[in-house]
């Protein structure tokens, strides 16, 4: 019987450890000390004991009863202390001010602006509704030029359109300010395209640096610095010759896939590379439109898509998410 009491104490202690709510204490008391409780049912067997044994067991069971009562009271105190220290329940939820958030595209733009400003660029802007001259002609894209195949343009009237790239800002800046020119121009651009990988409106950043002595080596220097600051210094770059009517030589810049480290995966279409920007030396033809002598200066220009950068940086695979404005998406960047 002594052993029974020991076992009862043991099981009580184990069960008490599992109690975390004040309202669970009373059922415990009933279970162990109640009229039909565990201790009572042991004491009922007292009759079977010899007279010399009875007082000893009686004392033991009394001791156990006191122990249980005390333990339950202490536990109840503990539980109450957690919930109402100093009179209030500090565990109740607080009043959280509503959290807002900057749209992911604008925060990426801001980050890129900071990087380019630290490399000597200032910020310029231009209209989103443009004329044909600034969007095409002065960028050496004459009417009927096959390069216009590359861009499907939204038109208003003859000669008035939504800019298809941020490049017209190059022309507007060179028309207005003297040399040297070191600008970036972030902003919205528009093309008649709408599917999983295209939205009819998206964002670009244009870069332009025109000054005596600027070379292709400088273009590479600036873009290497930019990519390394944005994605880390271990990201490889490659310059792939390409064609843009307003730069020559022209290069597309690829960065090694961040997901697979260049091994080839679904995200990079197994190529190991991501095409992220177009660049080149300003074509001498462009200088003629803005009255700059191409023999006196050289310059480079580049343009990159913000959405592409954001998608790579944050692992987003559907460009439309940016403009559906589902708060469940936007708030992830808050």
């Amino acid at each position, binding site marked *: 019987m002594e052993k029974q009491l020991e076992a009862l104490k043991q099981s009580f202690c184990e069960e008490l450890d599992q109690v975390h709510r004040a309202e669970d204490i009373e059922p415990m008391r009933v279970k162990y000390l109640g009229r039909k409780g565990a201790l009572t049912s042991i004491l009922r067997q007292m009759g079977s004991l010899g007279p010399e044994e009875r007082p000893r067991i009686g004392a033991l069971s009394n001791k156990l009863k006191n122990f249980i009562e005390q333990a339950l009271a202490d536990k109840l105190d503990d539980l109450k202390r957690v919930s109402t220290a100093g009179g209030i329940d500090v565990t109740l*939820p607080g009043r959280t001010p509503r959290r*807002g958030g900057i749209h992911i595209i604008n925060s990426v733009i801001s980050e890129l602006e900071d990087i380019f400003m630290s490399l000597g660029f200032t910020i310029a802007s231009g209209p989103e509704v443009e004329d044909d001259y600034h969007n095409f002609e002065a960028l050496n894209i004459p009417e*009927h030029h096959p390069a216009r195949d590359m861009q499907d343009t939204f038109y208003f009237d003859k000669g008035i359109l939504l800019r298809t790239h941020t490049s017209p800002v190059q022309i507007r800046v060179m028309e207005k300010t003297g040399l040297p020119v070191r600008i970036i121009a972030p902003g919205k651009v528009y093309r008649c395209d709408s599917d999983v990988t295209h939205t009819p409106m998206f964002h670009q950043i244009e870069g332009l640096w025109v000054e005596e002595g600027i070379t292709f080596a400088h273009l590479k220097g600036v873009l290497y610095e930019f990519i390394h600051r944005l994605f880390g210094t271990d990201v490889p770059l490659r310059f792939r010759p390409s*064609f843009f009517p307003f730069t020559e030589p022209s290069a597309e810049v690829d960065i090694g896939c961040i997901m697979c480290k260049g091994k080839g995966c679904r995200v990079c279409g197994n190529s190991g590379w991501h095409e992220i920007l177009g660049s080149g030396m300003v074509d001498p033809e462009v200088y003629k439109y803005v009255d700059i002598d191409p023999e006196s200066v050289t310059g480079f220009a580049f343009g990159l898509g913000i959405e592409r950068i954001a998608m790579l940086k944050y692992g987003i695979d559907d460009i439309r998410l940016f403009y559906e*404005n589902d708060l469940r998406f936007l708030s992830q960047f808050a």
Partner: protein
Amino acid sequence: MKLGYKWIIEYLDVKREAREAAEALTMSGTEVEEIIHETIPREVVCARLIEVKQHPDADKLKLCTVDTGSETLQVVCGAPNCREGMLSAFAPIGTDLGPGMKVKKAKIRGVESFGVLVSERELGLTDDHTGIMEIEADLKPGDVLVDVLDLEDWVFEINVTPNRGDCLSVIGIARELSAVFGAELKRPGLSLAETDLPAADHLSVEILDTDACPRYAARVLQGVQIGKSPFTMRRRLFQAGVRAISNVVDVTNYVMLEYGQPLHAFDSSFISGNGIVVRKARDGEMFTTLDSVERRLGPDDLLICDREKPVALAGVMGGENSEVMDTTTDIVLESAFFDPVGIRRTSKCLNISTEASYRFERGIDPGIQAEAATRAAYLMQKLAGARVLKGVVDVNHLDPKPRTIALRKSYLSRVLGMDRIDGRDVEAILTRLGFVLAGTEDGWTVGSPAFRHDVTREIDLVEEFIRVYGMDEVRAELPTFRPVISPVEKLSFDTLRTAMCAMGYTEVITYSFISPRWNGFFGDKALELLNPISDEMRAMRPSLIPGLATVASRNKSLQRRDMSLFEIGKCFLPTEKRGLPHEQIRLGAALTGQSEESHWSGRARDVDFYDMKGLAEALLPDITVRPSEHAFYKPGHQADILLGERIVGHLGALSDDILAVLDITDEVYALEMDADAVLKKTFRGVKEIPRFPMTWRDLSLVADEGVAYTDIVRTIEGLRIRELRQITAVDLYTGEKLSPGKKGITIRLTYQSETRTLEDSIINKWQDKVIQSLSAELGIQLRQ
């Protein structure tokens, strides 16, 4: 453009892996977007059909006894061309011919078949499924086909930039590789046997518009036998995505892919008067192209005609009336140069793009018409037994003068930033690309080949050099620059965004184009696109409110009740003058639902007008408001926002009509302000902090309902009490305890002097003045 790699290297003295060649093309400016590896299972062997018998239970099936080199097997075959003695391709049991096409032992109509005889299409080699593969080569049964027919290949999907029309051909691509790998370029075979009859006696060519068609060359061929082209030619066409038709037509396509020169074969029995006339179409002239579509032409479209009628739409598509058919024996073969702009216009207007028009638009080699015609005639002679009449009928108005460009070594360095450029590298690269160089004091005089119409300037040569030499060879270098101070505009917008976020607003970006149905709410007709993605995206937004309201509606439908949204973006306001519209950057905001999350301490409050107004006041403490009457807000629940006398924005509760359209049941409050005004907070200098105590006095007033709070403030301010620092409303009461048409308002007046502690007596005097004035001006009484 797609081309098989084995075809490309046929013209190149080089042995490189396909992958290496693709990489080299990509890194020199001709991007290989994809490499498709093609091969067939090694189990597929050459087999001879020893015996062919009728299947006992099926009319269309045959029982073939097949010698596979190692054994003799029974095979059931349904191909119409299956006949005794032929060599074909045999796939034994277990051969995997692609997904779901594993060869199994089968019983076909009660007869066992131990493998299959396969078609070219089943092997993925061409799209020919008219019968089992016919092996023309001298092979033995058991020969492993992939080896003996050299079937393993790699198809390059090549993205040619629009300036490089010359690369839309096998030779063009091979030439690029020859420059990168320093290998010799080989030319196709041309050893033709001509008859004594001069072609000129059988065909005259007259060009009526030499601008649109500066060169027209033709050959005359007789006695051709139309048939099927050999396997290799059909496979190469298939790899390039061109359908095989007949030997004559296939040759024209094959040579077009080789040289980039589109060719067209006419059945000369349909050419009246043995004459070709090239002329512009008449306005409204009808012509049926060989795709059986009748097309209405205009005076810009160019036609190839005989003496009576049009026979082809120049540079785009031949005519149905002169197409080569199975019965054709005599042929006029056209190899012309058409003006790229004209072809582009026709192709665009009629909405037809063909392999031919695609190449003409990008500018083909103007020096190659005769050679391409001769190459095609040579192949037709070889494959269709054609007799080729002597000479090329060639009417050529092209200026053959070669362009020369001076290339300075110093210019190369100045643009590229490379100190040491080895002249021999420049010479080797440009020469392999087809340029002719002669040394000068500071560089070279460079003769540009006719096919490189894109190379006209020194800078073009710089690009030619560096793209082949390797852009990776240029070392990256940062230019020197001065540090840049953040422009005010960036700082202000960044600060504004951060402030909006801190106040709990989430930024959205909506499209600049909206549905024209918003026009009704926003007054003036918006600027509209001629070619929108959809009608819902036709109008350039005159306000940010439609976008914000739409986002609110969308998120409500996604079970989001409470929202604080903002957007900073341009609005487009048409101007009277023609030209560009006025673009104004605005800040828009929208509020709906409860002002905070539901909380255990009490019920959260629904947002109202004053939450929205509070945002405006937080951004610009100096604003005032004036009741307004905008169609997009509820009447009586809206106001214009003023800074001084200038209206800088508006706010209010969205009108019931808008809520109905967007299917929103809760109130939505919106605000829109000119961003310029918000950002131009001026700092007026530091004020001294008062040293003497403030005194507050509350006044409980009863006013007519029509009296605005601002009237009370203005009246009190009119008293010009210098020590009165602030007036605020601390309570507003309407209810049963007041007589109808009255409202109770409690205002708190704060007094403070810069020079002394104010005594009660003086404050009481001011309070009396305030009460008197309010009573006199606005009929306001103290509440009893």
